């Protein structure tokens, strides 16, 4: 016993000693040494590792150390790290999270570096660079990729239902009767007896295949769930974007759209909300339990990977204004304000925002890089893999996208809107109840 105790004491002392000198090069040059970089999407890890190696070749005195953490743990770890002074020098940042980082002074402004190194902000797809300018007019990120929304559909189910792919790619929608979008969804829905959703005698309480998959109520954003519908009605999330201070969830047009969408679950064309808890919408699609899923372009790999499922991708339906619509969201790499390697960190972030790195990312066919010319390269790479991604790129080309709404108080708004939207989609409250939620949301900006 005594021996083990002694050994433990020695080990503990050793760990202490090691950790004391483990943090290493604390002093010295902020343009040299090791820069830490965090990201959440492991699918992109090989691409960024390649970028890091190339970067090291060009700058031999800087090494980039990449740590990847899954989305679920990523933000908790990051905020913890910021609170405890152990956050990474650079990290992949998300539009829904970055306003709060800016408010808390956790991000380093990149303006001086962008100016000094003549970074061309015009090389990015239009609008993406503006997303990362804070309310103070300072730049907190350089765009690295973007995503839009599309409809993943099961080709075999479509063929069986007698719907051509051409029809699927030219759907129309309106909030009154749902247009051909609802007709197709209804026709693709099959109950346990083989009756289709638009046939008499359809049993909406025993559905075998849903026409449309459901992931969640979408909270206040509805990025992949309903924003491609509300976007065609002229409705916008906020009074202005970015940095709006008033939300529009009390708008009757918006509430009508949500009411229509929630009615699909009531008609049996879409799963009930309570069945989505803990389930994966994509896996249900892979299991043949849904014919159409609306989802983001970052899910291309997931959907095209399912064995035994023939997947096609259609653009979102044309809506009331005669156009399609999709939320346009982008990621960027940010530098943490507490970094000890400021110059090296900024250099690395500039590199991931540059053509050299984004072409590497493009070649791996995982996401669409932010630089326009690299986007085309990514589309080619996807094509070589046998995936037609025009449903996603078309919206950017036709300029039918609207930018991800950026405001302060994002997590508090989510805390108000998630239960409110859940109640509407599960049929527990009418869509008009969102007016109250909207009051609570807008009260956050009055403080």
């Amino acid at each position, binding site marked *: *016993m005594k021996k*083990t*105790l002694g050994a*433990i004491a020695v*080990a*503990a002392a050793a*760990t*202490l000693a*090691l*950790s*004391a000198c483990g943090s290493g090069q604390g002093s010295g040059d902020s343009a040299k040494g090791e820069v830490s970089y965090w990201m*959440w*999407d*492991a*699918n992109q*890890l*090989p691409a960024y*590792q390649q970028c890091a190696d190339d970067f090291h070749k060009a700058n031999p005195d800087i090494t980039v150390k990449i*740590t*990847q*953490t*899954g*989305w*679920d*743990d990523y933000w908790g*770890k990051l905020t*913890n790290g910021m609170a*405890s002074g*152990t956050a990474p020098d650079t990290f992949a940042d998300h539009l829904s999270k970055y306003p709060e980082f800016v408010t808390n002074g956790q991000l380093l402004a990149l303006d001086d570096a962008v100016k000094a190194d003549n970074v061309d902000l015009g090389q990015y797809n239009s609008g993406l660079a503006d997303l990362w300018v804070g309310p103070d007019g300072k730049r907190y990120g350089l765009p690295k990729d973007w995503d839009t929304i599309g409809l993943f559909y099961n080709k075999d189910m479509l063929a069986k239902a007698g719907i051509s792919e051409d029809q699927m790619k030219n759907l129309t929608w309106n909030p009154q009767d749902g247009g051909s979008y609802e007709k197709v969804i209804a026709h693709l829905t099959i109950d346990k007896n083989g009756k289709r959703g638009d046939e008499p005698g359809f049993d909406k309480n025993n559905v075998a295949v849903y026409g449309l998959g459901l*992931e969640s109520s979408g909270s206040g954003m509805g990025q*992949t769930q309903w924003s491609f519908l509300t976007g065609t009605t002229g409705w916008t999330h906020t009074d202005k974007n970015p940095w709006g201070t008033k939300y529009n969830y009390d708008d009757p047009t918006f509430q009508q759209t949500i009411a229509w969408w929630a009615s699909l679950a009531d008609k049996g064309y879409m799963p009930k909300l309570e069945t989505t808890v803990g389930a*994966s*919408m*994509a*896996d*249900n*699609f*892979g*299991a*043949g339990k849904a014919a159409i899923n609306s*989802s*983001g372009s*970052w*899910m291309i*790999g*997931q959907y095209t*990977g*399912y*064995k*035994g*499922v023939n997947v096609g991708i259609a653009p979102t339906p044309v809506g009331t204004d005669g156009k399609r619509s999709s939320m346009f969201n982008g990621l960027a790499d940010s530098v943490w304000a507490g970094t000890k390697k400021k110059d090296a960190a900024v250099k690395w972030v500039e590199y991931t925002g540059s053509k050299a790195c984004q072409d590497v990312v493009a070649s791996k066919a995982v996401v669409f890089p932010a630089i326009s010319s690299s986007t085309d390269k990514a589309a080619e790479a996807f094509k070589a893999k046998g995936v037609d991604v025009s449903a996603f790129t078309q919206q950017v080309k036709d300029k039918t996208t609207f930018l991800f709404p950026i405001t302060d108080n994002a997590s508090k708004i989510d805390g108000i809107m998630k239960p409110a939207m859940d109640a509407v989609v599960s049929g527990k409250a009418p869509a008009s109840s969102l007016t109250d939620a909207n009051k609570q949301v807008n009260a956050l900006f009055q403080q």
Partner: protein
Amino acid sequence: MPASTVTVRSHRPAPRRLNWRRAIAWTLLALAIAVSVLPFYWVLRTALSSNHALAANSANLLPADFSLGAFERVFGLQSPAQAVAEGGSGASINFWQYLANSLVFTGTTTICAVFFSSMAAYAFARLRWKGRNAVFSLFLGTMLVPPIFTALPNFLLVKNLGLLNTMLGLVLPYLFMTPFAIFFMRQFFLNMSREVEEAAMLDGARHWRIFFQIVLPNAAAPIATLALLTFMGQWNEYFWPLLVGSDESTRVLTVGLGVFKSQSPQGAPDWSGLMAATLVSALPVLILFAAFGKRIVNSIGFNGTK
């Protein structure tokens, strides 16, 4: 079931009525076994499937599109590109490092916690001192505090000590005692016979010596039980190691499993990889239980005199 049915001593076949009962008993037993073993089987079946085929074959009892890829991912034998192609996360998994971390973390905390808790339990059970029972009640009271309450203060303390991402920071909160362990050992010490202890005292032995030479050797069985229980609990500990040991060098297995979770918002986890890793990381505990499981059952009926 009456005891007579358990051991049939006569050479004649037992009466029919008994067989009936026995059949029912066996059926119930078989059912219970099936219910508890089936999930394990499902884990194994999923681990031996290929990820992309899982969704389409969710009702199949046999592995969907048999593949050992999941286990290759767990042991880090696949290139990231190949792992991604198979529906894995492609994140690097330093399995042996995590295993070593888990062993050090669990081993250290188990040895220390059992040792110090035994000492405290001895003091509570055998020594008479002022306020003893009040202090003990206080100790028991701390069992009512959910660990999540202490997570943040502990985290800040460890951070201010500069021990984040060190093994010491990882084991600190568990090192000295847990109320349950003290309670458990105290119950046992209370039942130990006083004669041996008194004899030792007459021979001039001090508490220190009595504790080490008489009490501890006699308490081998409950100590083994407690060690096993602590080991299992520590092996499965997740939240604290996630907070404090997020670095590769201090990441334990439970936290390491996180790389199989969804990597992007809305993404589905690498199910087969997750199940393979869960299986592999549960093995040490299963082996321990197989080896010492009898001890646990036996020690509960232990009466303290040898």
